[in-house]
């Protein structure tokens, strides 16, 4: 028993030594390069514009802190809508893969196989190129449904009481998704949906065949059997891996920086380039993502306990 304490003390000392080595080097390097440290920069004027602000007021005269807050809001906006979309599409895919219709099941399987085996970043570039290079300009915008316009300036759709109308070189009114946001949203949604589809399929398959048969013998239709008998049981197998997909989607939204959507990472990157304070910038990114990760998994654990069998200990 004694020996193990010596091991542990040695390990902790070694870890401490490594951290101290890095920290002292960093302090020296920062001094040599005359880089300021501390969080003072947060209250200085940022001096850069942000293309879209998710409803927050922002101008170049605002502080870095406000710029980062706008970035965080943008991250939340794309992640929340993405999670909703991916859950919906993923559930449909999972059900489609189990469909008795051969064509539908094979199509869904093909989708999952293709999407899962291509890096998300490639897919984001693809969607961005498709929207910004291959869609026509606002004057010739595609109009698949009344009031909905697809153009290389973004996607426009009506809101209650406000229709998008072409005026000059762009649309006014309605709601607009910028090309960057649209590409990121479509990419994140379609990519994550492929993974969620597999989770849903595995979850449903984990419910024993007899449960279906019992439901049928009670006179329930396939749809009702799924809704009332199979799904509540499948959810128990689905929720834990679903949580990690939600987390993945949120973390993957950081790829926004590559296509120019101003998410948290992208704004932090600009901030680092302007102030030179890389450590604070990266720390900000990491702290925020850790906080998001911990709160999503906390929430999902709570939900998981709710759908778990009563009296079951996990």
């Amino acid at each position: 028993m004694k020996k193990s304490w010596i091991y542990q003390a040695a390990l902790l000392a070694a870890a401490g030594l490594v951290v101290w080595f890095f920290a002292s080097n960093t302090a020296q390097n920062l001094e040599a390069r005359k880089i300021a440290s501390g969080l003072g920069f947060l209250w200085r004027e940022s001096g850069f514009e942000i293309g879209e602000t998710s409803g927050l007021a922002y101008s170049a005269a605002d502080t870095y802190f406000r710029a980062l807050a706008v970035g965080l809001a943008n991250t939340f906006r794309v992640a929340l809508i993405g999670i909703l979309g991916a859950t919906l599409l993923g559930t449909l895919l999972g059900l489609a893969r189990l469909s008795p219709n051969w064509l539908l099941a094979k199509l869904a399987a093909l989708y999952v196989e293709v999407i899962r085996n291509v890096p998300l970043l490639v897919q984001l570039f693809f969607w961005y190129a498709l929207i910004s290079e291959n869609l026509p300009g606002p004057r010739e915008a595609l109009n698949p449904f009344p009031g909905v316009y697809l153009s290389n300036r973004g996607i426009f759709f009506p809101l209650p009481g406000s229709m998008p109308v072409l005026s000059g070189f762009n649309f006014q009114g309605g709601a607009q998704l910028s090309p960057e946001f649209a590409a990121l949203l479509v990419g994140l949604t379609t990519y994550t949906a492929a993974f969620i589809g597999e989770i849903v399929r595995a979850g449903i398959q984990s419910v024993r065949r007899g449960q279906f048969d019992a439901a049928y013998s009670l006179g329930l239709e396939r749809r009702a059997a799924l809704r009332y008998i199979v799904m509540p049981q499948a959810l128990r197998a689905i929720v834990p891996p679903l949580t990690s997909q939600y987390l993945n989607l949120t973390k993957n939204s950081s790829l926004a920086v590559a296509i120019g959507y101003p998410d948290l990472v992208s704004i932090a990157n600009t901030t680092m380039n302007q102030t030179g304070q890389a450590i604070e910038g990266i720390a900000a990114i990491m702290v925020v993502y850790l906080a998001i990760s911990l709160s999503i998994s906390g929430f999902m654990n709570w939900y998981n306990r709710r759908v778990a069998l009563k009296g079951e200990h996990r």
Partner: protein
Amino acid sequence: MNWVRANLFSSWPNAVVTLAILFLAWRLLPPFADWAILKAVWSATDARACREAQGACWAFVGEKHRFILFGTYPFDQHWRPALASAVLIGLWVFSAFRANWHWWLSLVWVAGLVLIGVLMWGGVFGLRYVENERWGGLILTLLLATFGSALAFPLAILLALGRRSRLPAVRLLCVAYIELVRGVPLISVLFMASVMLPLFLPAGVTIDKLLRAQIALTLFTAAYLAEVVRGGLQAIPHHQYEAAEALGLGYWKRTLFVILPQALRIAIPPLVNTFIGLFKDTSLVLIIGLFDLLTTVKVSLQEPAWSGFGVEAYLAASAIYFLFCYAMSRYSQGLEQHPAAGAPRVLRET
């Protein structure tokens, strides 16, 4: 006919779905085939032919394929990265066969990697020296993925064992590392390696950009692999630990000779899946300015004469990534469907 009735028209809703899919295919496939094949430009000396055409510009891929595959490597030396890529892929394929899973496989790898190093760097046997800032394209992606998995694997085993250790300080350090890394996006780890690592080191010590990206990918993947290995460790029934202990084996002997060989066999399919993830994740080095396969594709689009063919270029990139990832995922499915693959030889034969 029976098959069609059973699988496509077994019920009314089923028939409606089939007809809806056929209708969509009828509406969407012909225009797509028009764009991708019939009206596509397959070869052209300049982009003008492409701009006039209605279809896809595959000529772009033909024009730029050397740059996409080999990056800025000296043009007359392209056979070297080509051969090196072939050797590396050959090593992977060779290692996939169970018959080759022997101790000498590691010697084959060492020999193969030395050959690749000689080919890529040169400087000996009359080969011109090429500094690794000029490496790019496919070989860089393959090397990042190969070394990432090879280096992350031992680290992951240590982390997984540490997480299950009886010593609280060891457990704490390992849990903190794994959860911290898994809680943040890969980009932030890459930024950290590219921006912060130079600050961490004593003044005057510099590490090459490629190596920094490699360190980041390794440290990131290790955390995910550790969880996979832990899953394997947890699947080992407790009596295996007790039996090993009863034989009087100490912790390291018990772990190395009894527990790990079984745990890793169980974990092979999810391990392969994590490697697929790593292979896809190497594309993120684009963001810190390394010339991997995706970066060469993106840069090849920047030439004004050939800009605007992003869709074609990224479809081509997708096809290359898909080829590798799909092969790996089929391989892992094959292992899953033949559980004997993982079982010790003695068990298999009885």
